[in-house]
C-alpha cells in the first residue's frame, strides 16, 4: 500500500486502496461518526530565472485525515504515513481529542450518502509529464527570450492528485485530478511583461503563445513615463479582473453575513455590481479546475451566484446552511464571470475603443483595507500602459490602487468574452477583460 511494491511506485492511491484505507479507519474507530479524507499529491516544478534553471523539484505527499465525533464532541488527526500502525495511531489521536473536547453546538454528522460527481480530470498527458517535459517548456520560453536579448524568469509545473472522502454512514467519493501551470516574467531592462496559464492538460498551456505575449508586454514597456495618481478609466486584463473578484468571492461568507459583519450585509437579492454582470460556478467546464466534491463530502455543482448584478448566493458552512434552510449547499470552485450584451472580440479591441485609459496587465499584493466597503489596495505589475486615442502610447510607472470591486464594477463600459485568468494569488477563473470608466490610483511607485 505505501511503497513496498517497488517498481510500480510511485502510483497514486487508487479508488480501491482508498476504500481499503477508509474501511480500516472505520474498523478501528469506536466513535459515533467517523470521516476520512485523502489528499495524495504528486507534483513537480521547474523554475527558471536569468535564462537558466534555478530550481527543479519533485514532491510526493500523501495525507490521510480522520475526523471522529462522540455526541457532538469532535476531533481531527492526520498522517502522511499510510501503514496500518500509523492509521491506528491517527484514529486514536482523533478519538482522544474528541473525548475531551467541549460539545460543539454547531457539529453536524457527516453528510448523507449521495452520488458524488467524479470529474476524472487527470489527463494522461499531464500524468505522464515529468521533469523532461517541464524542462522542454522552460527551454522554449528561455529560448524565445534569449533570441530577443531579454531575461526570462518563470515556472512550469505539473501535478496529479488523488482526492477522496468517506464516512462510516456509507458516504464515499474519490477522484483523480491533474493540473499543469506555466508562468513567465520577461525582463527588458527595468520593465517587465508577464503571462500565465493553468489547465488540466499540459498540452493546453500554449507556452509559445504565452511567451510571445509576455515578450510583447516587456518590449512595449521600454519607454516609461510618470503619471500622477488619480482616477482614470482603465482597461483591466483578465488576470487583473480576477485579482479583484477573488476578494469579492472570499467575502461571501454566510455566517459573517448573518452576524452583520460582511460587506454584503443586507444585500442578498440586491444589486451589488453592474446589472449586466453574472457570476456562475461551472465545475464541468473543460478550461476550469472544478472539483467533484468538497472536503466535507458535498457535491460540487453548477450554480448561479450573481445574476444580472444581483447577489443570489452566499458561501455556506454546513451549520449556517442548516439554520438558513439552504440545501444543497452551492460550491464555488470553478467561477465564470460574464457580462450580458455585446462583447468585443479581444483586448486589442478594448484598446482601440478608448480615448484615454490605463491598461493594467495584472495586480499584485492585493489586500483588504476596509472589510465593510470591501475597499482593497494593491499594486499594478508587469505591464501598465497609457492608452490614448485607441493606441498604447507608453508604459507608465506602476500605481497603487485604492478601490472596492463593489464600486469599480458598478459600471462596465466594454468587455470581451470570458477568458482564462490565472495569477499568482488566485486560482483559475474565466473572466472578461473590461473597460471601467473610473478606477482610483492613490499613489505611484518608482518603476
Amino acid at each position, binding site marked *: 500500500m505505501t511503497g513496498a511494491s517497488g517498481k510500480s511506485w510511485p502510483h497514486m492511491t487508487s479508488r480501491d486502496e482508498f476504500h481499503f484505507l477508509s474501511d480500516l479507519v472505520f474498523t478501528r474507530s469506536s466513535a459515533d461518526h467517523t470521516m476520512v479524507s485523502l489528499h495524495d499529491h504528486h507534483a513537480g516544478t521547474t523554475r527558471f530565472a536569468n535564462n537558466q534553471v534555478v530550481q527543479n523539484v519533485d514532491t510526493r505527499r500523501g495525507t490521510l485525515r480522520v475526523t471522529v465525533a462522540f455526541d457532538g464532541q469532535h476531533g481531527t488527526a492526520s498522517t502522511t504515513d499510510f501503514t496500518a500502525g500509523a492509521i491506528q495511531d491517527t484514529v486514536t489521536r482523533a478519538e482522544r481529542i474528541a473525548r475531551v*473536547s467541549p460539545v460543539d453546538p454547531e457539529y453536524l454528522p457527516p453528510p448523507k450518502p449521495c452520488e458524488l460527481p467524479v470529474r476524472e480530470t487527470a489527463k494522461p498527458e499531464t500524468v505522464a509529464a515529468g521533469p523532461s517535459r517541464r524542462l522542454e517548456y522552460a527551454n522554449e520560453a528561455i529560448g524565445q527570450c534569449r533570441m530577443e536579448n531579454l531575461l526570462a524568469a518563470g515556472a512550469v509545473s505539473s501535478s496529479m492528485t488523488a482526492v477522496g472522502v468517506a464516512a462510516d454512514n456509507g458516504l464515499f467519493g474519490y477522484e483523480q485530478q491533474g493540473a499543469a501551470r506555466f508562468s513567465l516574467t520577461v525582463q527588458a531592462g527595468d520593465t517587465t511583461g508577464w503571462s500565465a496559464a493553468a489547465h488540466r492538460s499540459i498540452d493546453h498551456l500554449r507556452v509559445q503563445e504565452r511567451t510571445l505575449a509576455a515578450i510583447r508586454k516587456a518590449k512595449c514597456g521600454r519607454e516609461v513615463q510618470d503619471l500622477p495618481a488619480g482616477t482614470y478609466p482603465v482597461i483591466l486584463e483578465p488576470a487583473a479582473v480576477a485579482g479583484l473578484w477573488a476578494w469579492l468571492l472570499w467575502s461571501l461568507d454566510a455566517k459573517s453575513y448573518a452576524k452583520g459583519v460582511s460587506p454584503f450585509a443586507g444585500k442578498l437579492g440586491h444589486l451589488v455590481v453592474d446589472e449586466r454582470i453574472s457570476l456562475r460556478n461551472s465545475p464541468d467546464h473543460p478550461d476550469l479546475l472544478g472539483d467533484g466534491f468538497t472536503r466535507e463530502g458535498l457535491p460540487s455543482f453548477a450554480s448561479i451566484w450573481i445574476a444580472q448584478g444581483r447577489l443570489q448566493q452566499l458561501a455556506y458552512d454546513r451549520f449556517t446552511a442548516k439554520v438558513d434552510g439552504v440545501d444543497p449547499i452551492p460550491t464555488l470552485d470553478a467561477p465564470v464571470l460574464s457580462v450580458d450584451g455585446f462583447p468585443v472580440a479581444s483586448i486589442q479591441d478594448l484598446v482601440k475603443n478608448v480615448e484615454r485609459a490605463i491598461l493594467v496587465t495584472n495586480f499584485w499584493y492585493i489586500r483588504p483595507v476596509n472589510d465593510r466597503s470591501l475597499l482593497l489596495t494593491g499594486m499594478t505589475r508587469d505591464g501598465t500602459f497609457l492608452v490614448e486615442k485607441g493606441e498604447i502610447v507608453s508604459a507608465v510607472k506602476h500605481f497603487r490602487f485604492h478601490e472596492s470591486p463593489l464600486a469599480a464594477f458598478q459600471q462596465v463600459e466594454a468587455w470581451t468574452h470570458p477568458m482564462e485568468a490565472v495569477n499568482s494569488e488566485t486560482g483559475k477563473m474565466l473572466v472578461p477583460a473590461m473597460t471601467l470608466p473610473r478606477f482610483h490610483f492613490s499613489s505611484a511607485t518608482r518603476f
Partner: protein
Amino acid sequence: MSTPTWDEFAELALKRIAASGAEYGDIRIQDSHTEHIEGEDRRIASIRDIRDTGFGVRVLYHGAWGFAASSVLSLEEVPRVADLAVEIAKGSTSIALEKVRLAQEPVHRDRIVTPCRVDPFGMPLEKKTDLLMSVMDLLHRPAGVVRSRASLWARQDRKLFVSTEGSHLEFDLLAGQGECTATALHEGRFASRSFNTPHLRKGYELIEEADFMREASRVAEQAVKKVKAPLVEAGEYDLVLDPEHLSLTIHESCGHPSELDRALGYEANYAGTSFLTTEKLGTFRYGSQHVNLVADNTEPETLAATGYDDDGVSCQQWDVIRDGIFVGYCTNREVAPKIGATRSLGSNRADGWGSVPIVRIANIGLEPGSATVDQLIADVKHGIYIEGHGSYSIDQRRYNFQFGGDAFWLIENGKRTHMLRDVIYHGITPEFWNSCDGVANRSVRRRYGFITCGKGQPGQSGWMTHAASTARFRQVQVIRGAERS
C-alpha cells in the same frame, strides 16, 4: 526485520548520490507534529493534530540542482527518490549557464534542542480548551461585540540533516503561539481588535505567561471603542509605532529587499525583486542615523535561531542597515559567492521535508535607541500612535508600501488622546526610514514571529522573528481606510 533508523536511510541516499558523480548532496528527514485549536464565537470549532513525515533529497550535479521528496520513508522509496533527484539535476544541467558554486562551510556535527519548561503537547487538552472558552466569554462581555476568535498553536519538528560533505545535524525544535480577537458592530460598521503572543521557540510557558484573561478583556473593550472612534482626517502626521506594528513594517520593507536571491532576480516571476540592488551594498542610505537593523539568527527563542540552516550553515549575526546605510544581505551558500562573500550567512530554509530550501529573511530587528516611549510621544504635536498589524501591501521591489494597524490613538501636543479608526499610512521605503528620528530604549523591545511569509514556487511559508522598540517617524502621509483616498 527491524525498521531502519533515520541515519541508515540517510546513508542509503547519500551513497546513491556519491555514486552518481554529483559534487554535493544532502538529505533532510523530518517529522513535524502540529496541534492547532481554534475557537470561534464561544465554541471550539476545531482541534487538529497533524503528523507530517517525509524526506527530501537535494543534489548538485555539474553545477545544477535537483530535488526530490516523498512522504514514504522506506527502503524502496529512499533510493528511488535519491536517484530521481540525481536525474532531475542532470536534466537541469541542460539549462544551467552559470554553474552553481557553493560557498565553503565547515563540517558540523551537532544536536539542537529547543529549551522548554512546559511541553505544549503534554499539557492536557482540556486545560487549553477551557482557556479558550474563558477567553471567548470575556471577549463577548462588552456590549457591541458580535464575534470572537481564540486559538492556540504548537509545533514540534524533529529533523535530521546529513550532507555528502560530512555534516550531521539533529534538530528537536518547538514553537508556539496563542491569540484572540473580538469584533464589534456599531451602526453598520464593524472593527476587530486582537491580542497575540509572539510566535516563539518556547514551550507552553509562552501561553501561561501571557495573561490571556487580562488581554482578552482589554482587546474586547478596545474593539468597541475602535468601532465608535472618529474617522481619521487625512494628512501628514508624525507616527509613533509600537514594536508589534514595526515587526511587519520591518519584514516587508527591510526583510524582503535584503534577500540576495531577490536582488539577483531569482524571484522575478513571483515574490519579486528588490530595490536594494547589489551596487548599493555599502553605500546606499536606506534610513536615518537612528536606523540600525541587525539580523540575528542566534538570539534564543526566535524562529530563525535553529542552530543551523538547511544548507547546514551555522546561524550568525550581522548588520543589514548600520547607521542608516545598507550593508548586508541575507544569503545562502549558492548566492553568497555572487557578491564576493566567502561564506554564507546561513539564511537558507525550507518550510518542511517536501520543499527545497531558499533564501529567507533572517531575524531582522531594529536596534534600540535611548529614548523612552513617553519622550517620543512628548515631542509630537500632531501624530498617531499605532499598535499591531492591519492592512498591508507593498510593490514587488519593495518601494511603495501601505500599512494599517490594529489600533490607533491620536497624539496632540505631546499627549496620547482618544482612539481613531481606519488609519492607513503610505510611503516609499527609504524616505520612510529616513524620517525615523527616534527609537525607544531596550526596556520596551519586543519580538514578533512570522510563520506565513510566502515565497517560492511552489509556495513556501517562511519563519522568522522581528524585534523592535517603539520608534517615531516624522511627517508621514496618512489616508482614510474607510473610503477611496
